[in-house]
């Protein structure tokens, strides 16, 4: 019976590639406990996030990330999948622009980079462009009562992640890391 031989070969390949291969990678991962769990960030022994998973920021005192179709719900990531000419979508973007201008009154429309008002692919994009951070400094400083804007500007500049090897790919800023550094800055101020 040829089919019996095929069934046997089937189960052998299931064991090899369905079980042994992923388990082997898992075992090697045990040598890299942080990476193999997605690079978690702990604060006072509490899990506060993952380096690469964006978080939903909406208070004035934090830098905001990109709009997210799922509000940064990392249980079920997702994108808008709106087409480029969809009228409903364009109204949504316009509303985001208006809202941003309202909350950041010192900023002009033409200073807003598109990453701040368009949804990301994963809905968990951890990054924004440096321009997107620069135009939020005024609001953040005000909300935190930091008079010296230069301090925050310096923080933003320190958090710019350069292209790979300085040559390949875009520059960007990890919003979570920037906000954590910001919280630290404030704490130091209070001391």
């Amino acid at each position: 019976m040829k089919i019996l031989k095929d069934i046997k070969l089937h189960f052998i390949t299931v064991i090899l590639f369905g079980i042994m291969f992923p388990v082997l990678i898992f075992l090697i991962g045990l040598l890299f406990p942080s990476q193999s769990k997605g690079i978690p960030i702990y604060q006072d022994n509490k899990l506060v996030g993952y380096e690469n998973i964006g978080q939903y920021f909406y208070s004035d005192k934090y830098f905001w990330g990109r709009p997210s179709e799922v509000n940064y719900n990392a249980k079920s990531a997702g994108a808008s999948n709106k087409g480029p000419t969809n009228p409903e979508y364009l109204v949504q973007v316009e509303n985001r622009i208006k809202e941003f201008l309202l909350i950041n009154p010192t900023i002009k429309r033409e200073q807003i980079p598109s990453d701040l008002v368009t949804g990301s692919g994963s809905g968990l994009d951890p990054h924004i462009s440096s321009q997107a951070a620069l135009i939020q400094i005024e609001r953040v400083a005000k909300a935190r009562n930091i008079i010296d804007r230069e301090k925050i500007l310096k923080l933003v500049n320190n958090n710019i992640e350069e292209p790979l090897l300085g040559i390949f790919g875009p520059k960007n800023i990890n919003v979570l890391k920037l906000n954590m550094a910001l919280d630290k800055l404030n704490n130091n101020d209070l001391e």
Partner: protein
Amino acid sequence: MVNEYYGVILIILLLFVLSVPLGKYISKVFQGEKVWSDFLSPLEHFIFRIAGINENESMDWKENSKALLRINFIFFLWSFGFLLLQGEIGFLNPLNILNMEPTLAFNTAASFTSNTNLQHYSGETGLSYISQMLVIGFLQFVSAATGIAAFALFIKGILQNKVTNLGNFYNLFLKSCTRILLPLSFTLAIILLLNGVPATFESPSTIVSLEGDSVTVASGPAAPMIAIKQLGTNGGGFFGVNSTHPFENPNYFTNIVETISLAIIPIALVFTFGFLINNKKLSLLFFGVMTIFFLLFTTAAVKLETQGNPEIAKLGIMQPLGSLEGKEVRLGSAATALWSVSTTSTSNGSVNGMSDSMTPLTGGILILDMSINAIYGGVGVGFLNFFMYVIIAVFIGGLMVGRTPEFLGKKIEVREIKIAVLLILLHPFLILAGTGISTFIINNNPHIGWLSNPSYHGFSQMLYEFTSAAANNGSGFEGLGDNTPFWNISTGVIMLLNRFIPIIGAIAIGGFLASKKVVPFSEGTLKVDSVAFAVILLGVIFIIAALAFLPVLTLGPIAEYFSM
């Protein structure tokens, strides 16, 4: 932006340079020459002994085709059954995910058996960890190996001289798994792991964000599966949003590695062909024809996406990073455009940005790319598809100069040409018939809620879905509400038809060619390893694709472009 262009150039260069030695290695594996991975041969012998298969028995095209179909049918039944019952298995299912609905399970089993990886479910919420491993990850290996084995059988057919046997499917299949896919996947999985792609069996953790909100973060044994989904032109992601997810593609470096991985085996196989038939010039010409299309599409897509969306520009904001809806800032619009063209060229179907939100003409390019379905193409099968165009070009070229159509000393006769033409026409037939039927349905039931976009773009969403299914690609204009019985069954059937009919057709042609006598080269022979033939081939591909698909593209992406 200039750094983004450098990134694109780097990826393309690395891809081309690395695929040549890989092609050489694969040719050695198929010829049974000494290679470094020979330490695996006791394992392979052991597997065949347990299964009771004689891997050295040479079979003709019919026996090989039957073996291929039989084992793939078992793969399909296994997956279908497993997904239907996944909720009953109380093991490695931390989120207590339930049994899959039957039409969705059918679609998913068809999709992964056919190397398509169209996903009408979302990985985080639709599959348990054990299903991800024993169905998805498993099928990503064996479906890719099926394609590579079919490729090897076909090449054997060209090389044989009046012999009916093509070799042994099982042997080629297992070697494709152990010698090609396994070492590459292992390497890639480790690279991904080191960059923060999870490989854990822990339940999803809950974090308290800086704002004080509680958020559950889905995770799992992702790294091994993402490796094989990239390398085997599978494309089905661990997470629903595929390689846009920061856990699936954490940084620009992993993006470089993943982009190279998704296209490297299809390109390497073109060189493998050259090494096997001992005609490097011919494989370079084939590579050149494919690459002309690839570079043309890439340049256009990169330009369109980095320019930004004209409709957003009208709102008066800056678009320094190009069109960003559905894209990730760490990857950028240029690298995302390159990935999109690579993934549609090679029938991979993984994405690192949402095709649905790209500018209209980019969407059109992606559909056209899948319509040709032979610019490198899926592992193994891409070359076979390409060869159907070659047969037609040989026929037309032969007619033009009044010579008998021949390919490397093998007469191409009515039988082969009939099969090639039928296979080439099957693709547009399935796509256009499917799109026509779905358009008819939605026209009569406008409130059915399939489309996330109105008008031309909505039409493109349906066209893209059927093109992707027929091309065994698996990417989508994901705004399409495709988890319904209509889409599950129609695309499921199309994926299976357009997977196995072309494979069997190609193996049959291989069998026919094998039994023919090699005719010595003479004055009356059409020279296929010449630039003139490459030009004919280029023209044939362009004309067939343009005739079959330009009209329908006009109704979708092109109309949307002119509406801006």
